[in-house]
């Protein structure tokens, strides 16, 4: 018993060094590189989202590429794309916590941050897409002028509720994890920073009760969030699956969407980790080791195989249905001569197979290329689902065409700019990884090594 309770005094150095680095980085002035990237992204976000939203509110949804046959265009594609990225962050963080994966600590905070930024980006699209932004209050539980309440049996209302619930709980989960770190920064920083961090630390002292409550609450929160995430992306898929539109009316959609979200989210996390390692201070390079990147890549590979299975399932289901449905599925996949579908499969399933090789998993540039291919593939998947399905119909009169407008393009570019801006601010104000968890991880790892010796 006593031996178990002995602390690892020889392990203090690594964790102490890490804490010191983080505190120094938080207090260091912002670099010119940071300001340049931030200002450029702010300008892009303003032009892309600000100006385009104003155009839509003042001129109507005619400025978009949508038409009578294809009423949902790029805006809904990007809503699904960003919400997918957002869902993966918390799911990965909570699942790795529940399964007690020791490599969770360096990437969990980054994934949670990605969730918050991505959900904010996603939320903009459906609101703006309706054209009359000032009528957004009608999704709230309030009766409108004629006394009619919003229809809670509608998948669109389920979506509003699910995404709002998800955002509220994700931000709470993220903040709860930050409280001990804020306390540490409160105790080590000076001046205004000390006051602000003190405010957000809520008076955390680090007693045994607080640590125990924190640990158990995190676990219970993870257990709550895991089914929530699965339900939320399933609800997003219900926007399509519960309609009678051919190409959307598929029972496969909930798992198909959830796996797709996890795949794109994992790709985004790897991309963020590589960029953060290049652009941020030494602490990130110390915390995010080659082993962490290796394990994250293996998870991406697993998810891409699952996605491949989903594609196979979708097409086998199509073959088992009536000839008309099979024809429609074929027509949907023949969008742009069929190359969109093949690019999607190549990007999401074939290119990630490179990750079987250790050499690729160790190369930062290869990981960036694989992640970009997955993100591109997932974007194409959402495009084929939303636009590809709407363009086809059992009736020739309902078949239409779709071409995105420049406003559509700017909206997407703007959302990417907003994502980078938000991420840069949050990653600057809060530690990129949980300091207490990382300290525990380093010490437990050294303990294991000592026991092995």
């Amino acid at each position, binding site marked *: 018993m006593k031996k178990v*309770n002995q602390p690892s*005094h020889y392990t203090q150095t690594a964790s102490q060094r890490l804490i010191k680095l983080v505190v120094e980085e938080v207090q260091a002035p912002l670099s010119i590189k940071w300001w340049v990237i931030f200002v450029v992204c702010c300008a892009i976000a303003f032009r892309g989202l600000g100006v385009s939203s104003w155009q839509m509110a003042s001129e109507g949804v005619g400025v978009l590429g949508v038409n009578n046959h294809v009423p949902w265009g790029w805006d809904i594609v990007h809503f699904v794309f960003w919400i997918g990225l957002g869902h993966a962050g918390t799911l990965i963080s909570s699942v790795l916590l529940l399964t007690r994966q020791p490599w969770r600590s360096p990437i969990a905070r980054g994934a949670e941050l990605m969730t918050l930024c991505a959900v904010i980006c996603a939320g903009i699209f459906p609101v703006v897409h309706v054209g009359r932004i000032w009528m957004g209050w009608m999704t709230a539980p309030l009766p409108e002028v004629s006394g009619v309440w*919003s229809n809670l049996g509608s998948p669109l209302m389920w979506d509003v509720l699910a995404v709002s*619930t998800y955002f509220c709980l994700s931000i709470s989960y993220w903040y709860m994890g930050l409280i001990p770190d804020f306390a540490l920064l409160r105790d080590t920083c000076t001046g205004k920073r000390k006051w602000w961090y003190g405010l957000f630390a*809520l008076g955390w002292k680090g007693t045994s009760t*607080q640590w*125990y409550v924190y640990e158990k609450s995190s676990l219970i929160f993870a257990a*709550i969030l895991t089914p929530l995430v699965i*339900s939320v992306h399933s609800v997003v898929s219900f926007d399509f699956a519960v309609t009678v539109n051919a190409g959307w009316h598929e029972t496969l959609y909930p798992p198909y969407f959830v796996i797709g979200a996890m795949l794109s989210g994992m790709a985004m996390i790897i991309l963020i980790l590589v960029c953060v390692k290049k652009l941020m201070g030494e602490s990130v390079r110390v915390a995010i080791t080659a082993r962490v990147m290796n394990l994250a890549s293996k998870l991406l590979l697993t998810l891409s195989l699952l996605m491949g299975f989903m594609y196979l399932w979708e097409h086998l289901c199509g073959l088992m249905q009536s000839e008309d449905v099979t024809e429609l599925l074929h027509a949907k996949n023949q969008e742009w001569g069929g190359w969109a579908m093949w690019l999607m499969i190549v990007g999401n399933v074939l290119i990630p197979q490179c990750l079987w090789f250790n050499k690729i998993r160790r190369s930062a540039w290869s990981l960036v290329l694989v992640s970009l291919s997955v993100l591109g593939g997932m974007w194409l998947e959402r495009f084929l689902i939303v636009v590809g399905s709407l363009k086809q119909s059992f009736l020739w009169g309902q078949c239409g065409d779709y071409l995105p407008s420049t406003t559509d393009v700017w909206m997407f570019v703007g959302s990417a700019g907003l994502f980078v801006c938000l991420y840069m601010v949050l990653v600057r104000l809060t530690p990129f990884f949980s300091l*207490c968890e990382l300290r525990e991880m380093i010490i437990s790892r050294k303990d294991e090594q000592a026991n092995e010796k």
Partner: protein
Amino acid sequence: MKNNDKTNEPFLLVRFKDEESQVKAANQLVNEGTFRWDAISPYLNEASKLAIDPYKKQILARLRTFTFLGACFGILLAFVWIWSTQWNVSPRLEVQGRVPGWDQLAVYVPVIFELMILFAGVGLIIGFLSKAKLPRWYDRCFDVEFFEIDDKGDGYFLIIQCDNFDKIRHLFEFCNIENRHQFVTTVDQKGGSNDQ
């Protein structure tokens, strides 16, 4: 030591040089078994685990209860919302010939589920804040000069409910407490600081 902040009971705050000393002292206190005490550390280390051990089940049960009650409240709220805005209104909103009511309950399952999860989370947050005694803008320990961590994020303390350091001096003889201890009585009244 639990609830030392609620009562104004005097306690002794002892700072240790390193984690090893704190754990040794914590083990001594466990073996002695007569003092109420608590550990303060930069993460859930062995000393904190020893301190929390007798209270684990109770705290976990409280957290689960808060979560469960939150979930129940969410379900109840969802039913009230659905009943008052969909079923008990005139005229009812009929979509595709379906009249809202109990026989259409399936379409409201996502709403019920989401509210259940939302309020389970809210319940958990309330439980977390109440059990961790947060937010807490003032604590008697904050007045103690040496109650701070160093620039490496280290600070190992024990809070022991006793009115005289001599009573526990023999316990810490082999614990390498090179640092300081202070006797803290009430919010406004502090004992003298001693260097060992």
